[in-house]
């Protein structure tokens, strides 16, 4: 039985033997993206889980060229890598960055914005596990409303994070970037197709992929892929693209699955009461009103 997606990517492993927790969504995203880009990808990793688990001297788990950047400097180092290799006369390579949600939406947003502004020929992948997981689960700008983290604990009066998730996808798109996309490791063929598409486009590319963290989300390690599917099916995340000034929706669930079921599965949301769940459901419906009115549907 042939698997089309598996046939379309390299059989080699470029991220192997790493020390990520069992069932890590972020490592799945990095592994899949590198299998698309191949051995000539030069990856840049800022402080975060993927650099912490990939480079434990002498255990070096990337088999392509990789470098750790400063926390804030993923995009600026990508700019330098791309310019340097181009100046040296290399043609067949891809500069790709893998930053977490904190390294993208909080700490690295200035460098990313600058790179998009200069339209440097790079791919920036944000693996979003919705908090600073590497340092022990602190709230980031991409932590969703209601999530319990060590800096937004759930008490009697305040139920976890009081702020909604930043819309990084549309922030990137607002720069009039050549290509931006959202994805989820639960829909891996879609993510792989988007990385492939990004690698063929000239200019800055931004891909935002939801990568569940079993440790931080409070789910079993084998739930990673399922929960990454469910976040899309329940309408709390969406698979979309931005290209040539237009938004396209790639996947439209016929009927949303229960938000409550999705939330209650996870330790970080278990404290939420009916009012909180109503707030989350309403904000989802509002989001989808916006999506339905301003996104085209690629239709399947």
């Amino acid at each position, binding site marked *: *039985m042939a698997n089309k*997606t598996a046939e379309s990517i390299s059989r080699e492993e470029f991220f192997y*033997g790493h020390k990520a927790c069992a069932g890590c969504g972020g490592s799945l995203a990095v592994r899949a993206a590198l299998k698309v880009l191949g051995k000539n990808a030069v990856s840049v990793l800022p402080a975060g889980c993927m650099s912490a688990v990939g480079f434990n001297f*002498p255990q070096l*788990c*990337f088999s392509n060229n990789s470098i750790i950047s400063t926390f804030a400097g993923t995009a600026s180092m990508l700019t330098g890598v791309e310019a340097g290799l181009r100046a040296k006369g290399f043609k067949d390579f891809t500069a790709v960055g893998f930053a977490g949600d904190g390294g993208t939406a909080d700490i690295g947003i200035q460098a990313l914005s600058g790179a998009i502004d200069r339209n440097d020929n790079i791919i920036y992948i944000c693996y979003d596990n919705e908090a600073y997981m590497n340092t022990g689960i602190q709230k980031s700008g991409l932590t969703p409303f209601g999530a319990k983290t060590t800096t937004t604990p759930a008490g009697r009066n305040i139920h976890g994070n009081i702020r909604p998730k930043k819309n990084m996808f549309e922030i990137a798109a607002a720069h009039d970037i050549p290509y931006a996309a959202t994805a989820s490791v639960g829909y891996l063929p879609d993510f792989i197709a988007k990385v492939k598409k990004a690698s063929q486009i000239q200019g800055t590319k931004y891909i935002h992929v939801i990568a569940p963290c079993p440790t931080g989300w409070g789910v079993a390690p*084998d739930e990673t892929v399922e929960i990454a599917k469910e976040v899309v099916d329940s309408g709390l995340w969406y698979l979309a693209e931005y290209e040539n000034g237009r938004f396209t929706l790639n996947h439209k669930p016929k009927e949303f699955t229960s938000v409550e079921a999705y939330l209650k599965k996870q330790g970080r949301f278990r404290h939420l009461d009916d009012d909180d769940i109503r707030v989350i459901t309403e904000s989802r419906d509002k989001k989808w009103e916006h999506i339905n009115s301003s996104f085209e549907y690629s239709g399947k």
Partner: protein
Amino acid sequence: MRPYIREKTAFGFDDVPVNTSFEAGYLVTVNSGWRSIRPVVESTKCVGCEQCYLYCPDGVISIKDGKAQIDYDFCKGCGICAKICRIGAIGMEAER
């Protein structure tokens, strides 16, 4: 190529690189000690659909002769493969 285990595991002072770069894909330790359960492929059931290969976060599953094969040196026993397998060809067994 996938990164592979080197025979040399002890490092002397002279082996430490003088600058911040080092050989890519250099492995010295396995991850198998992390497991409390291990996936076992029932090769009579496996149809080689490669879903487990695609979704394994550690990339330890490869397809050989149309059947899934697991590299137990680096499998952490997360169980994603057993969940993703639609025909139930992968079971999780306690590690002894």
